[in-house]
């Protein structure tokens, strides 16, 4: 049976999503441009915005591409591509995929070749991230027409709440990584060490340009350590 993950059908779905996002972006940009002209914004200012934002986005987009690459081993290329073209971010997609895989008795540590599990992961990634879109469709107008009313009463707590929820999620996955034994712990520590180094370079040395690469490079470093360690363990020369 063909590999669903990298099938032409999946690539076609990916191309369709990419086309949708492109058309939507262009339509919104044309409308905004016309509105800008009406408001008296100069064409030069608006052009500068387009060029500036495009340049600004190149490096973070490469980081997103690297996130697609990290998921490709388990899920193939098209599904991570689709998910990170719409709504997604690696911090959501990866936990969602793993939790769904575990409910079916497997893990994204392995290649997901079982069609049922693959479809379950696709469903979980898609359904889990639909909520923000529903909220925007229903509430964006109300939030925009009465901005002050919708502002959070306690912004300090809102920030802490997000941190606490993320910490709950992170600790759950850190805990489950321990089960993976020495290689997993080594990977975890390597990736954490590289991230800490990035943190120091960004904060102490002021290298803010590195911010976008901190996450993917830390992940890939950790994964490289895992591959090298396994290779060495098998008696392969490094």
């Amino acid at each position: 049976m063909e590999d669903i993950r990298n099938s032409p059908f999946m690539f076609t779905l990916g191309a369709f999503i990419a086309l949708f996002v492109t058309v939507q972006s262009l339509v919104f940009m044309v409308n905004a441009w016309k509105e800008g002209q009406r408001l008296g914004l100069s064409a030069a200012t608006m052009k500068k915005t387009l060029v500036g934002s495009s340049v600004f986005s190149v490096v973070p987009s490469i980081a997103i591409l690297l996130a697609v690459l990290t998921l490709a081993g388990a899920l193939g290329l098209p599904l991570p591509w689709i998910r990170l073209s719409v709504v997604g971010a690696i911090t959501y997609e990866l936990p969602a995929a793993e939790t769904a895989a575990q409910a079916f008795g497997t893990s994204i540590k392995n290649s997901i070749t079982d069609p049922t599990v693959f479809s379950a992961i696709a469903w979980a990634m898609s359904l889990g991230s639909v909520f923000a879109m529903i909220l925007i469709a229903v509430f964006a107008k109300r939030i925009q027409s009465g901005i002050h009313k919708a502002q959070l009463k306690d912004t300090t707590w809102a920030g802490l709440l997000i941190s606490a929820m993320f910490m709950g999620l992170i600790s759950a996955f850190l805990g489950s990584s321990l089960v993976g034994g020495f290689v997993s712990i080594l990977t975890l520590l390597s990736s954490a060490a590289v991230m800490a180094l990035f943190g120091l370079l960004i904060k102490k040395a002021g290298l803010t340009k590195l911010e976008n690469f901190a996450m993917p490079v830390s992940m890939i470093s950790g994964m490289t350590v895992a591959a090298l360690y396994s290779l060495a363990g098998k008696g392969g020369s490094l």
Partner: protein
Amino acid sequence: MNASVKNIKTYDETIHRNGRIWMIAAIIITQGVPLAISLYYNVWPPFGKLMAGLLPTMMVFWPIAIIEVITYTPMLGSGGSYLGFVTGNLSNLKVPAAISAMQQAGVEPSTKEGEVISTLAIGASSLVTNVVLVTGVLLMSYLLPILESPALKPAFANLLPALFGALGVVFISRNWKISIAPLALMIGLFVAIPTLPVGILIPAGALVSIGVARIMYKRKML
């Protein structure tokens, strides 16, 4: 003046009408992807198992979605929000791109001019991401045999510790006091029952983490 007020109102009204249409289309299309997979390959995951796999992450990410919508919508403006929440990668790309563009153009968020600049910035940003991803995926499709090689298996097998090791550093350094309770709980659970699935660990970790954070916040320990 009157004419321009009328025009602005018109833009405001159209952007919400069009925005909603596009958003509903995006919802249908994003949910259409798994539906298409299920229909085309005739594979339907059992509902109960799917829910068991979906609920733990929903429990964490749906409340985050509420906070993100309330926080980012006023920053991005209407057009920017309708577009940004479809194309995703908000906190790592779209929000900083929009804010930086508004600063450079000398306009404020939540103003008519800010709305225009933010929408243009998010649109340009989405297009660039799209071009990079399409190019990258096309190039990488030639590299698939390498990606699937046995030497790289251990690398992909350790994707989760790689992500959460790095993410752990970010969140622990941001607020280490919040991290103590959930980490202690996980170590305790690991010692007691090492094989618990993340589907149980996530709600347990999140509830303890939020509960302890709330108590510490009320006692002014955070």
